[in-house]
């Protein structure tokens, strides 16, 4: 019995049960189905983890999915170290967030639907990470995108929510466009879409160039970059990051699960999974590193000024994802995955805390209308504080180890842009600490700035919500301890565990330098927190004055660098304009239809003219006959 099959298919079964019977029969009890399923998955995952730890790697097909000539793709499963890490992340977060949702979503009219979607998402995400070939990966990839679409647009009667869902899906399609082509290129290059043969043969093509759309390009670079397009979309990197902030329209547990802990990290997972290909192309790696670094910085700057609690965390997610790509780009895939793993805990926790706050504030999102919530909701406060300390990279917390690993490997690795991205990374670490604590201070400290009515309602969330918070908090604090570096006396077990899959990047720098890197990032974190404390606890007028002084900068940041407006201006509006005015208005109506309608019209017109020949006068008829005869005779004589 292949136990591992239960991991994805339990949630699928839960989805089917909920979607078919939820509306009429299960109703308020729908969560039981989903939670039991995901809990089952979690248990099987743990068993599988033990198997993998004991060295048992699974790679087998369930059935062949698409067979056409030499093209073959299966539904198959590969469970190795990387997969199992992802499995742990997905099932753990998913399970906790399921439980949290019981309290958070109680009373919602689409209760069954919500749990159905969560289960479906879990299924798709598990299929994604467990795939043993690219096509199944693509299936999971699109599947999670779909669930994300459903869940973002969960409150579909709100225009903004349905807009956001649609936007997420379509923006992702842009990335998937490249991803799909990448899969096709892989198939055309290797003759297969399975991971194992592709990765083992990749080296043979290391030096090959290929003609792509008329340009000769390095084959591995091409494939890697096409795949990376998918990552950019899914992990909301520049320039396809625009969907993620809007995705916050979805219920908060969704933001936590999909848009923080699991789905958005699929891009990182893809790069890590395809590390044998990426490693063969320095260009591709550089692109990955720079994209990650720039996105990290870019999103962090936007997060500085946002007022919406979820949006701040969303930009922080984009920024942290950038970190992970930065890591992958410098060849430190293990560090990237490590950060993915720790990030999933503290970021999910941040979102759930935000949800808890919103719950208390009756859906209020603007942190400027909060303040002083500490005394009303202590559990939320403390868990969120720990999560923020973790993300800010405070020593000892999970985030510290993973972030430090990334910065260290960026600094010390072989990458030509390593030092540059390290500088950005350190800067982002500072910014991260700043905006995270800006959020904490504005929300939980100071005086309450909301309405009286809101203040009256303030309360701590129910047990179903706070228990997951506490559990996640343990993860946010302690999950990093499996990867304490050798320098600090740890065993770097996490990196060692992933080594068979992701390889190991050699650091060629001294211990002193390593201490220095660690110190710098720690200092950056501390100073970020300090500055936030100064701005929002001590001298609260500084931010306002700064905003006034650097109005343009502030406006640009507030409007997210106008990227949305730019896309609307260069893609959406021209497309619709073209459709309306050129395709419908000119090609269809004035050219094709003009011909199509013109021919019968012309014939009708010609018919009316030709009718006039038939005057009704006998002699005219006879004359035409005679004339016809004459013409024929003339033709016969002079032809």
């Amino acid at each position, binding site marked *: 019995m292949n136990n591992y099959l239960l991991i994805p298919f339990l949630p699928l079964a839960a989805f089917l049960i909920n979607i078919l019977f939820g509306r009429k029969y299960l109703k308020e009890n729908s969560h039981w189905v989903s939670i039991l399923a995901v809990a089952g998955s979690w248990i099987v995952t743990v068993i599988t983890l033990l198997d993998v730890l004991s060295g048992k790697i699974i790679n087998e097909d369930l059935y062949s999915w698409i067979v056409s000539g030499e093209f073959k793709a299966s539904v198959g499963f590969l469970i190795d170290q990387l997969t199992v890490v992802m499995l742990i992340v997905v099932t753990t977060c998913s399970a906790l967030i399921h439980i949290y949702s019981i309290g958070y979503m109680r009373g919602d009219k689409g209760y069954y639907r919500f749990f159905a979607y969560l289960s479906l998402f879990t299924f798709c995400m598990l299929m994604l990470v467990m795939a043993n070939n690219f096509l199944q990966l693509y299936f999971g990839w699109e599947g999670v995108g779909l669930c994300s679409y459903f869940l973002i647009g969960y409150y579909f009667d709100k225009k903004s929510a349905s807009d956001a869902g649609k936007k997420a899906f379509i923006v992702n399609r842009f990335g998937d466009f490249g991803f799909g082509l990448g899969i096709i290129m892989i198939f055309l290059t290797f003759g297969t879409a399975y991971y194992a043969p592709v990765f083992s043969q990749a080296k043979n093509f290391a030096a090959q160039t290929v003609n792509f759309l008329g340009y000769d390009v390095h084959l591995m670079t091409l494939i890697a970059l096409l795949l990376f397009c998918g990552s950019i979309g899914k992990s909301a990197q520049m320039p396809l990051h625009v969907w993620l902030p809007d995705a916050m329209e979805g219920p908060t547990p969704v933001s936590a699960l999909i848009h923080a802990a699991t789905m958005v990290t699929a891009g990182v997972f893809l790069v890590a999974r395809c590390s044998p290909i990426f490693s063969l192309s320095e260009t591709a790696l550089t692109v990955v590193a720079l994209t990650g670094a720039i996105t990290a910085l870019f999103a962090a700057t936007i997060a500085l000024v946002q007022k919406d609690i979820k949006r701040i965390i969303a930009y922080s997610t984009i920024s942290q994802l950038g970190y992970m790509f930065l890591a992958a780009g410098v060849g430190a895939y293990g560090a990237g995955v490590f950060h993915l793993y720790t990030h999933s805990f503290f970021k999910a926790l941040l979102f759930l805390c935000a949800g808890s706050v919103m719950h208390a504030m009756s859906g209020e999102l603007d942190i400027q209308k909060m303040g002083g919530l500490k005394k009303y909701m202590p559990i939320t406060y403390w868990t969120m504080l720990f999560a923020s300390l973790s993300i800010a990279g405070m020593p000892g917390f999970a985030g510290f180890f993973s972030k430090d690993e990334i910065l260290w490997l960026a600094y010390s690795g072989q990458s030509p842009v390593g030092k540059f991205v390290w500088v950005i990374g350190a800067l982002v670490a500072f910014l991260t600490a700043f905006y995270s604590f800006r959020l904490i201070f504005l929300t939980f400290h100071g005086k309450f700035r909301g309405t009286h009515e809101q203040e009256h309602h303030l309360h701590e969330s129910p047990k179903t919500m706070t228990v997951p918070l506490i559990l996640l908090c343990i993860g946010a604090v302690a999950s990093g301890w499996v990867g304490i570096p050798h320098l600090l006396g740890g065993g770097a077990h996490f990196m060692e565990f992933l080594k068979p899959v992701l390889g190991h990047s050699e650091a060629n720098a001294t211990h002193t330098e390593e201490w220095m890197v660690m110190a710098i990032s720690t200092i950056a974190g501390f100073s970020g927190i300090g500055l936030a404390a100064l701005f929002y606890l001590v001298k609260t007028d500084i931010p306002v004055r700064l905003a006034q002084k650097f109005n343009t900068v502030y406006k640009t940041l507030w409007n997210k660098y106008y990227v949305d407006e730019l896309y609307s201006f260069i893609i959406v509006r021209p497309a619709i304009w073209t459709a309306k005015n050129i395709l419908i208005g000119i090609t269809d109506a004035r050219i094709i239809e003009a011909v199509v309608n013109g021919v019968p019209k012309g014939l009708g017109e010609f018919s009316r003219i030709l*009718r*006039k020949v*038939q*005057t*009704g*006068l*006998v*002699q005219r008829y*006879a*004359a035409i006959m*005679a004339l016809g005869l004459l013409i024929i005779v003339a033709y016969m004589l002079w032809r």
Partner: protein
Amino acid sequence: MVPLNWYLILSAAVFMIGVFGFLTRRNIIIIFMSVELMLNAVNISLVAFSHYLQDMRGQILVIFIITVAAAEAAIGFAIIIALFRNKDTVHVDEMDEMKG
């Protein structure tokens, strides 16, 4: 002996006169007479050929043509009378009830 060509030219000329008459005259009866003229033109050439070829068929045909012409005249006048009763005219250019 008169050469064949002279008959043929005469025949053609009479035929053309008939055609011309048909195309130009307004009165149906005159138009009909023009048709008779055309038939007689044919008769001339047939008789001439018959004589020239020393073959009876041409003359037989001429007899038939004359007979048929008579029948045609009978029917033609009947139609003209029917028309005249309804329309009070024998002018062909007033008959354009149907056209187009």
